[in-house]
């Protein structure tokens, strides 16, 4: 009994029954209004996230023992005089109650002023400005490479054949289990120290980027690959693939024209998450490969108790995450009209093909 028991002869509801909000028949003005509302809600949410991230960091860093004035005066172990400390305290307002400091900080933040770094005697904005490029380059390249690797492996290893499938999913699981710091050292040992193909110290030149990008991309590809493989397998079993084959489409055509897109969908949906993951990874990778970047800045700033710099980096990362999430949302909706169609409301209806949304869990 295939089909009849579970799916039903007459599947109803879900994306299948042709009732598409925003489709023909829906008034345009309502559509526009809902779109405006959605954008407004997204922006409001983003602002909230930024505020909360800044607030959390601000108070979180206050929990750390140690005198912020000291961080200003040459950092740990400084032998700054009492006068110097007092001067700094009043200059930076450390002598005021914490909530006053918080409000002051927030006030400046609203005007776009991130303050100036305690340890680097430079405006936080300019430090971030000089560091962000490298990290973004790294993150974007790693994401792209991870994507291509994952998709390539998913598509290749689902060609049929148990061996390919086993190798494919095995590689993915192992890749996802590899700690990137270990991977980095192994890659350096093999490709830099032994083979001397790529430099151990990363530069923005193509050769210098290979190892750090691989370090970040391989584990990520493992995660993405696991999801993409399922999506590819789903697509391969989907009736539309049968339909395409019945049309005379070749195996390559099926993969290229149909399966690939479906495999890519969860990759798109996960890019926001992947971005956060990459930033965490950048902390380690930038240290090992001696690359300038936000990750290393963050690690140093935390260790030096450089509060403005930490908050600055956190904010930038949060903005990046928010932008990335909005972007993936938009791209996902463009790539997959089913997402736009599926109502976020409750649905007790069974549906035989659910879009790869990041929300739907059936365990």
């Amino acid at each position, binding site marked *: 009994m295939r089909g009849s028991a579970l799916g039903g002869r007459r599947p109803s509801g879900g994306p299948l029954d042709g009732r598409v909000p925003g489709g023909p028949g829906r008034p345009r003005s309502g559509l526009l209004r809902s779109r405006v509302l959605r954008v407004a809600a997204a922006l409001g949410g983003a602002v909230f996230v930024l505020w909360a991230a800044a607030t959390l960091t601000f108070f979180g860093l206050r929990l750390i*023992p*140690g*005198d912020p004035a*000291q*961080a*200003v*005066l*040459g*950092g*740990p*172990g*400084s*032998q*700054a*005089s*009492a*006068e*110097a*400390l007092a*001067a700094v305290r009043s200059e930076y307002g450390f002598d005021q109650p914490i909530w006053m400091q918080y409000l002051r900080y927030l006030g400046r933040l609203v005007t776009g002023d991130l303050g100036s770094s305690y*340890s*680097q*005697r*430079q405006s936080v904005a300019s*430090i971030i400005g*000089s*560091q962000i490029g490298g990290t973004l380059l790294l993150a974007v390249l790693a994401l792209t490479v991870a994507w291509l690797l994952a998709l390539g492996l998913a598509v290749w290893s689902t060609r049929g054949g148990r061996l390919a499938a086993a190798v494919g999913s095995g590689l993915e699981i192992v890749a996802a289990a590899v700690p990137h710091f270990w991977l980095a*050292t192994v890659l*350096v040992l093999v490709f*830099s*120290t032994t083979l*001397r193909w790529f*430099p*151990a*110290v990363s530069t923005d030149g193509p050769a210098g980027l290979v190892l750090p990008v691989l370090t970040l991309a391989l584990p990520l590809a493992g995660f993405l690959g696991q999801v993409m493989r399922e999506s590819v397998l789903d697509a391969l079993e989907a009736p539309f693939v049968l339909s395409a084959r019945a049309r005379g489409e070749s195996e390559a055509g099926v993969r290229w024209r149909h399966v690939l897109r479906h495999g890519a969908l969860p990759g798109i949906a996960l890019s926001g998450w992947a971005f956060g993951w990459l930033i965490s990874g950048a902390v380690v990778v930038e*240290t*090992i*490969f*001696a690359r*300038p*970047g936000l990750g*290393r*800045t963050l690690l140093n700033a935390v*260790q*030096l*108790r450089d509060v403005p710099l930490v908050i600055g980096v956190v904010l930038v990362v949060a903005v990046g995450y928010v932008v990335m999430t909005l972007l993936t949302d938009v791209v996902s909706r463009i790539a997959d009209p089913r997402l736009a169609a599926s109502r976020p409301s409750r649905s007790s209806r069974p549906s035989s093909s659910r879009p790869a949304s990041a929300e739907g869990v059936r365990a």
Partner: protein
Amino acid sequence: GPSDTPATPVAGGTLTYATGFGEPTCLDPHVGGNMPQALVGTNVLESLFSQDETGAIVPWLAESGVAADDGLSWDVTLRDGIAFTDGTPMDAEAVKANVEHMKDPETASSTAILALGKVSSVDVVSPTVARFVLSEPDSALLESLAQTWLAMESPAGLERGMEANCEAPIGTGPFVFSEWVKQDHVTLTRNDDWTSAPAGATHEGPAYLDTIEWRFIPDPATRFAALQSGEVDAIDEMQPDNVVAATADGSGLDVLTGALPGASIRLELNSGYAPFDDELVRKAFIAAADVNPGIQSLFFGTVERSYSVLSSSTPFGASFEDDYAIDADKANQLLDEAGWMSRDSEGYRTKDGERLTVDFPVSTNQSIPAEVSLFEQIQATTKAVGFDVELHPMDLSSWYAALGSWDFDLTSAIYTKNSPDVLRILYDSENIIPAPSGYHPNNAHVSIPELDDAVTAAGQTTDPDERAALYEKAQELLADGAYVLPLYDHLQKIGYGDRVQGLSLLPTLQIPYFGDTWVSE
């Protein structure tokens, strides 16, 4: 290694140097004052004096320094005709401006301000004579002035304000700061008008190198890999196994070694608090902490065990090998004697139900990995007699915080200073009292009036014999009281590839000196 056949120096080329000391937050060593600043600054900013291999003071920007009979003032005569790279003359006015800059609380100097603690002002006697007026005699003044942290900077440059001066301080040296890409590199370019080579330089006149690219590679393995692959020409802070690899035949690399002046690498036992407030316990610990086999294996024979608190490159060091003999039976006996008689289920000694715990905060920033491994071995060997040494690796801020609040029993701290006066800084009871920031150099909590007197007197006299006697006395007191466990010299190890020629260490602080360096193709 590099060929020993003397080659003719060639001008031009770039040398890439990768440091593991970290990136300065400000290139002006007056501000704060730490090793990273001194390293990158020495080839740009020059000092009034320098030192030779024996530690003797030799002139540099100054021709001479003469103390008044009462020791309360020093007349420093400057070399004529030297100018900063911005054209400002390097004269007595400049010296005065520099000292005032270092002593200004706004500058937030920590190293220079300590060194100038006894200097109350500088008088301009003539354009070439600056008079340092002191509040009390200071035999270490010229040594202090030889340090890069007290280097001379263009007064015009200082006036630009801290932010600008931090970016590119202006000196008289063979190179100038031309670019600083944060977290990546600092570029030094040649000063074609340079005339002030230090004593011991092999040539006069401009340096050979066009540029030095000064990079920051914190990870030691990466740093060495970069040296091996030729991405960089020279690195510092080499790991012991890398030193072995680099000195091996056919490696294409060589290593330049020098002992950093000041205190040796040592463990300080916090005698201010239990359990090390009991001399018996301190002695037991030192009798049990077997470090020699570890130093051998962890450092592959690249360092030697030291029995002196002072570095071998610092004059007046005294060795008391017998005080550090390993004897587990003696250690056990001492502990019994001290009342730590029972042992708990894990074999640690207890007294009144309390375990014999020794808190050991370790700065992952100051202690290299091999050192941390050595500490682990100390932990293991002292465990045999019942010590529970707890290692706490910490970042620099937390470590200073732990030290500042005396929240430790054992620690290892670096102190680099080109003078035996380091003994006063580290062990004078006055330095138990923390600075406003909480920093106190006397981590062992040593409070011995005799020792205080000895180091103070030694700091005031200029008679070498008298100084030697006083410093030996101080060191003997430290050894007898088991306040410190000296381990080995703090070595500066510069690895470099064979295209680098004429590299040397400036003896003052054992900092690589590039005035004579060239690269062959």
